[in-house]
């Protein structure tokens, strides 16, 4: 205790010496040291921690703002990085709501004092349900990778099997997360992708299907941007061995692309980040899982599921936990996987986003992304030495640009783009060495034609130099 302090710390009111003393007396103690008597001296830290001196609020602001000022950001640069975290238009109201003190600081209250939180999350579930055309959606989980991991483990429990098939085009980082989460209970096997189209190689899929297979997982659009248009066929193949069809989606595509329920998906998962979350250096991710309203599936969710109920008062809505007894909160290790703090604020935000956008907004937005990304791809592919890696496949938002014909590395190109105020696409050369120098470009509704023309112009300058 800082005995020489003449006033309290603003965050710790009872550091007021008189108050502290009165409270100690009340509980029969003489000094604050006695408070920790339960801890043996041998375990006590016998020195002060070596940490920087405390800052007052203004010092802190200046210090942190000074650090942050060293970051270049995608609001000031033109950014073509995507690969799991995407820069989209965020309506101001999304931030207004998720910055509300009430939502920022609430946690796990009861349906009565936190009625608003329950309702908001129920609404989130309901709005995503419409987007993905499913009847059940969970309270958000950590991210797409977690949602996919859980979907696969749900499939494992439902089928009593232990192998999942995934296309090799899954994001290597996501595959690592799924792998860690599934090990050692389930095994992942990878299906080849067609070198020409970038899509799953269905022949290889057929070859790998067997009675061991719990699930076939695939993505629309894929990590590499391709729109998989044989979803029905893949789901039917999965179902042919009584496996479960799991589809990962970018929800922002669903204003224009068919929802997976229409091509046989049993479980849908994906990331909410495009629906109103700032990138936040990767802190905006949040996963969702959706299924039909089938008890077999619902009872395998580890997550909380909020349901709507009547109350004592006619016509009034209340909200509560559906089938709470599934969860590890109720059953510890006997519950379904585990549940804890997830990403509720992003669920609320995604709900606000979808409420604002409506069906027309999502449709227009999807169309705009289709057009702008195609336009960018076309402009880039027109540059000598630059081409598309999968020119025959339709894509949504992202596409693989092949720089092998330029004689330059992606790293070189990106360094030069950075000088021009542009964050170039993600370098794929480490993850997919067999493709040489390729990069994944992301183009969304936020890119103006001028931005895309400038990218093409700068790129042309770089490759011709």
């Amino acid at each position: 205790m800082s005995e020489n302090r003449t006033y309290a710390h603003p965050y710790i009111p009872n550091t007021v010496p008189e108050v502290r003393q009165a409270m100690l007396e009340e509980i029969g103690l003489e000094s604050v040291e006695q408070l920790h008597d339960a801890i043996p001296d041998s375990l006590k830290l016998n020195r002060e921690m070596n940490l920087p001196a405390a800052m007052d609020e203004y010092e802190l602001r200046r210090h942190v703002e000074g650090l942050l000022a060293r970051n270049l950001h995608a609001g000031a640069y033109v950014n073509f990085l995507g690969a799991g975290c995407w820069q989209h238009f965020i309506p101001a109201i999304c931030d207004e709501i998720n910055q509300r003190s009430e939502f920022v600081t609430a946690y796990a209250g009861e349906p009565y004092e936190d009625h608003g939180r329950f309702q908001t999350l129920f609404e989130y579930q309901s709005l995503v349900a419409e987007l993905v055309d499913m009847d059940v959606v969970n309270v958000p989980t950590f991210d797409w990778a977690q949602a996919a991991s859980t979907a696969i483990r749900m499939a494992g429990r439902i089928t009593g099997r232990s192998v999942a098939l995934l296309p090799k085009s899954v994001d290597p980082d996501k595959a690592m997360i799924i792998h860690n989460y599934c090990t050692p209970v389930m095994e992942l096997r990878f299906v080849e992708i067609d070198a020409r189209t970038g899509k799953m190689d269905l022949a290889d899929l057929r070859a790998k299907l067997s009675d061991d297979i719990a699930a076939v997982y695939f993505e629309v659009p894929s990590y590499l941007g391709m729109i998989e248009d044989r979803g029905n066929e893949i789901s039917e193949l999965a179902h042919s061995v009584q496996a479960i069809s799991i589809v990962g989606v970018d929800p922002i595509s669903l204003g224009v692309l068919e929802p997976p329920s229409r091509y046989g998906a049993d479980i849908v998962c994906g990331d909410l980040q495009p629906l109103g979350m700032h990138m936040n250096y990767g802190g905006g991710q949040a996963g969702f899982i959706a299924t039909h309203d089938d008890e077999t599936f619902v009872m395998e969710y580890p997550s909380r599921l909020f349901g709507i109920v009547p109350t004592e008062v006619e016509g009034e809505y209340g909200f509560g936990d559906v089938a709470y007894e599934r969860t590890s909160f109720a059953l510890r290790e006997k519950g379904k996987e585990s549940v804890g703090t997830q990403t509720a604020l992003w669920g609320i935000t995604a709900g606000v986003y979808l409420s604002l956008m409506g069906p027309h907004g999502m449709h227009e937005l999807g169309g705009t992304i289709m057009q702008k990304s195609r336009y960018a791809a076309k402009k880039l592919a027109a540059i000598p030495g630059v081409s598309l890696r999968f020119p025959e496949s339709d894509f949504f938002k992202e596409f693989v640009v092949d720089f092998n014909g330029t004689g330059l590395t992606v790293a070189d190109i990106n360094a030069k783009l950075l000088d021009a105020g542009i964050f170039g696409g993600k370098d794929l050369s480490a993850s997919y060495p067999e493709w040489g120098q390729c990069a994944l470009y992301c183009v969304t509704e936020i890119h103006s034609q001028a931005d895309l023309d400038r990218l093409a112009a700068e790129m042309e300058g770089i490759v011709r130099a």
Partner: protein
Amino acid sequence: WDEPVVFELHRPGERGVIPPRTEAGIAGAVGESESLIPASMRRAEAPKLPEIGQAKVLRHYLRLSQETLGSDLNVEIGQGTCTMKYIPRINEMLIRTPHMMELHPLQDTGTVQGMLEIFHKLDLAMREISGMDAFTFQPSSGTQALLAMASIVRAYHDSRGEGDQRDEIITTIFSHPSQAATAAVKGYKIITLHPDEDGFPDLEKLKQAVSPRTAGFVVANPEDTGIYNPRIREFTDVVHAAGGVCYYDQANANGLLGITRAKEAGFDMCFFNLHKTFAAPHMCGGPATGALGVAEPFKRFLPGPLVTFDGSRYELQGQPHESIGKVRSFYGVAQTVLRSYAWIMSLGAEGLKDVARIAVLNNNYLYHKILRIRGASAPYIKGRRLEQVRYSWQRLTEETGVTTEDITRRMCDFGLHYWTSHHPYIVPQPFTLEPTESYSKEDLDEYIQALEHISNEAYTNPDIVKSAPHNSTVHRNDESSLDDPKTWCITWRSYLKKTQPN
């Protein structure tokens, strides 16, 4: 407010916002968007999202926010174990800048030196606070941190060729359910120790439990009871001797900052919930951060990448092959890393110790007062507790029929949170209070008075407690449908189908 469900605000033709459009020049160059989508993949039927004007959407969500009792708005000591402390507003303001919000995680590291410096400096602070040797902020909650630790236990034993043999993890019943659950996710068999009569984990039982099958031991100290186990070092020694890994659930380390550390207690790993001890907000349930620290021998198993500093430049460095890989996309919840860094910088070493001491002082003051309330007790040892206590209304229930769930609902009428405990209810009719360092004596007295008032009601007019809430936005739920697949309604569309059949 008697606020409808958002779908009920739907009026065809209204718009909440108009998204960015395609310029004519682009449309001219590439054609209509429909033409760019394979025919089979064009959405045939628009999603049935509501159409609502912007003002109405804002009004709806603002009203729902007002119907949510954030910790900013009340004396938030009723959600014990959650460490609901004051969330400094300056920290919330600091993250609201494009220099944070508009960073892409794959930007060249040269363009995010400030961000990486914050990661690195928080890592250094956490090392000092815990005695561990390296931290990752990738896990996005305590549960994910526990999962990561269980994964590291597995990777460690695999690396020693004992992965298959060591298939048991030992935990305690007063620990968070996720300790057991995440270990089970990683394929472990769970051994759960029950406490001795004084509420301490039982060393003899541990000695009986360990074996060559022991992979690890996970425990909190203090546990949810607020009782600190002074023999913890003997526990970790027993486990180590059996070849197991000891990992420490420090989700809530609020009573220990600057007082005692994971290292000295013999742990190989620990994690801190930044949204508990380190003053990041809970945000209705995440995104959060379980900052995971390990002793040097376990560093190679951490999920990657880690932030390194060579004296002039910060870098993201991939992890070796033995690493568990990743547990979450990218590097964690960067905003919360910044928040907790800012909080530590606001307090310094002395301030952190003040946190621990005042948290314990507040708790013991509360404990002292609550034991005087008719019908209330605190099972196990009678001595001091650290930062929280699990209490019991067993006597009150026996004498009045009022249960702890009734009191949950009644406390809401006073504008206060109140939480029972995790299941199973080892302590009968439990409630768990944790005052933290953030509340003043008057705040604590207000909470105590509310409990006293309800205790009096229970003894004089129990119906008022049993029929609560009386002052909430809503009335008492009819929960009968929630566990029945035929009637539960997890989405609005499901509700419409189940309640308007035709």
